[in-house]
């Protein structure tokens, strides 16, 4: 477990974040290795979603450094960060409800100018998410939660990102779709896209992640290879409901 970690693609180091007077992150450091799935676990109000927002430039940290592929992201606006190769699947999907499914997926390619390749990628998405084929001209807001999650993932992939950040991708989905989403995250990752995901459902997340971090009230309290964390009694007690979880 010590030698196999490749060079980091994304690195947060010493990040301190504040909302007004309240400190959200305390000296936060997280790295996502190239080609890995990294999962950030934590309960409510632990600062998970804010971590996503820091990476995407939606919230600015008061101090600390965020680098992507060796270059700093601090001070960049969200659209510029997206152009560097980070795509997002936001919390609760956040589709463009009044636009069609096709338009939603194509919005993911907003930063690209290669029309023909975009059209090919749209076809590729329909093989990856076959269910969306019949839904293309439907209003995105009329889809079920699980279908919306598929659209959100397809939309993120359309920018040909090097990394996808996902905020609670399984939240509010039926068990059937939860498995499907996790399966898809693994597939996406195998095609070479690094994944950083924030999750509350620790047992599922640790199934597919390479590494994981546990965030508690803004501090990293545990980190390491997912397999090791899964067996860690502290994680089991806090997040996996004691010994019932497999």
């Amino acid at each position: 477990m010590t030698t196999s970690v490749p060079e980091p693609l994304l690195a947060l180091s010493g990040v301190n974040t504040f909302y007004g007077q309240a400190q959200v992150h305390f000296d936060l450091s997280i790295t996502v290795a190239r080609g890995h799935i990294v999962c950030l676990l934590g309960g409510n109000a632990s600062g998970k979603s804010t971590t996503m927002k820091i990476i995407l430039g939606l919230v600015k940290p008061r101090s600390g450094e965020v680098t992507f592929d060796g270059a700093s992201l601090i001070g960049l606006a969200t659209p510029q960060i997206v152009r560097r190769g980070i795509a997002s699947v936001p919390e609760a999907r956040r589709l463009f409800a009044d636009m069609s499914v096709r338009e939603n997926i194509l919005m993911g390619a907003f930063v690209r100018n290669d029309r023909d390749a975009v059209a090919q990628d749209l076809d590729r998405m329909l093989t990856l998410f076959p269910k969306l084929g019949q839904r293309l001209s439907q209003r995105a807001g009329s889809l079920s939660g699980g279908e919306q999650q598929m659209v959100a993932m397809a939309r993120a992939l359309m920018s040909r990102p090097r990394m996808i950040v996902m905020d609670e991708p399984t939240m509010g989905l039926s068990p059937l779709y939860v498995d499907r989403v996790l399966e898809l995250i693994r597939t996406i990752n195998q095609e070479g896209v690094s994944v950083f995901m924030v999750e509350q459902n620790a047992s599922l997340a640790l199934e597919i992640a390479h590494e994981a971090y546990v965030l508690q009230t803004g501090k990293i309290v545990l980190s390491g290879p997912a397999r090791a964390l899964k067996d860690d009694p502290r994680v089991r007690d806090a997040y996996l409901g004691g010994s019932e979880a497999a």
Partner: protein
Amino acid sequence: MSSWLDYTINGLIVGNVYALVAVGLALIFGVSRLINFAQGSIYLVGAYIGWVAVVQLHTPLPLTIIVVAAAAAVVGLVIERFGLRPLQNSVRIAPLLATIGISFVLDQLVMLTFSPNPRALPSQLPDVRFQLGGGTIGPLDLLIAGVGITSALLLFVFLRYSKLGWAVRAASQDRDAAMQMGVDVNRVNQAVFGIAAALGGVSGMLVGMYYNQIDTAMSLQATLKGVVAEVVGGAGNVPGAVIGSLLLGLVESYGVAVFGTSYRNLFAFLLLVVVLVLRPNGLFASARQAPPEPLTGTFIAPSRPVRIPRWALAVAAAIFAVLPFFPVSFYVLQTLINAWLLGMLALSLTLVAGTVGQVSLGHAALLAIGAYTSALLSLTLSVPVGLAVIGGGLMSAALGTLLISPSFRLRGHYVSIATLAIGEIVSLVILNWEGVTRGPIGISGIPPLSLFGYDLISPSSVYWFSFAVMVVLALLQGRLLTSHLGRSFRAIRDDDIAARAYGLSLNRYKSLAFIFGGFAAGVSGGIAAHLYSYINHETFNTQQSILALTVVILGGLGNVVGAILGSVALVGLPEVFRIAAEYRILIYGIVLLLLVRFRPQGLLGTI
């Protein structure tokens, strides 16, 4: 005009003109959740640029349209870049107030450049009318319809097929998500402000040609009509704005057909209030997501109020109380009397807008109700003036609260729109209810102030009277704010959902605030009526509502001492510096803009 077909054609043509304004408002609201009160000013600018092009440069019509569209678009881009973009991270009310300030500045600049006198704007089209069924239609009607339909088609193509158009749609549905797709929201804002301004400018020019007359009063009217049409159609909904505009045009035209010209605007605002009450999201609102959080809370800039020791306030009050004993000029006393009257209005507004968070843009209506009640009580029923003024206050409290109550379930910007409309309705009812209010003639010969049989005619007695009334109202309001009731008011402002969850009845507390505030404003209006001895439906106008709002923001929202300080400053400083009257509104607009940008909490801070 005679036949119903004529009224229908007129309604649709006017509706087309409104649509050009409303579509721009809808685009801007969609992307920024902002009601752009400067839209009417751009329309005004468009009309005057059209006048320069046609009358002075003799441009042919197609070129005139292009020149107006391009010049108005530039104005829109400048507003977005320098007026609104710096406020991106401010409190939600800041951009709204900024657009009000910008509209004051633009209107006044146009007035100073071209003089307030109306000008003729010839249409350059042959003056013939074609028979169409039972009605007639002229080339200008066809031009307006053509411009309306062409603009709608161009806009449709832009939104549906261009990349920037997609960005506009995405940003208006979910701004954050659009940014995460790589959309540059600043460019989107630029695009919608440019388009909205181009359409608005062309609309102003067409209206000028339609009535063959332009003047600076067009601005506020256009903003109001555009806002009505947009809200009727569903705020932020572009096709809805078009349908809302046509509907508004027809309702007005038929209203005029049945009741006469002076009822035109009354029907417009009644339509707005009916829609706001029955379908606050507009007629064509889709079941869209709730507006982005926070709904309230950050609406008002939070700050630490400046603490002023009681003894200092007492000393200041004592100095002002003994002022008439010193050899001060009549002019100084007169200025301060105006300040005390404005102070009462500001006390009322700072309670309603600052403490309870209901930013009213129609507060002058409360003055009008108080003034008319007091004037009519003393004139027709011979009620002693002192009692009549109190009667004016009570009537303002009762009627004002009753009129505003349909808007209690609205929030944020919608409260501002509803109060603006209610203010206009009050003024229009006064204009049209001739049996009681004497209509456009107004009321003259109102008896002077008197108390227990003694006439208050000397400047110092009027000064003492108005000062004393204001101080009593201020003390009462100060007590109110420190009481349990005051805490409940602030709770509603800061988070109405949480307040409701704690069992506060919003309607009851909002009513209480409007009753108290209505009384203060009504008393101010009553005193003013007896001072002026003549009032009409335009004595208490929207400009006064906005002036009061500027005063309240200058002093610090919710701040009692701030309201009075703000009144003295805004009434007194222009006098001190001998600023000519026509520049004052310009200065108020600039003060509002600077405050919003650099000191949103006001001089003494919000409470």
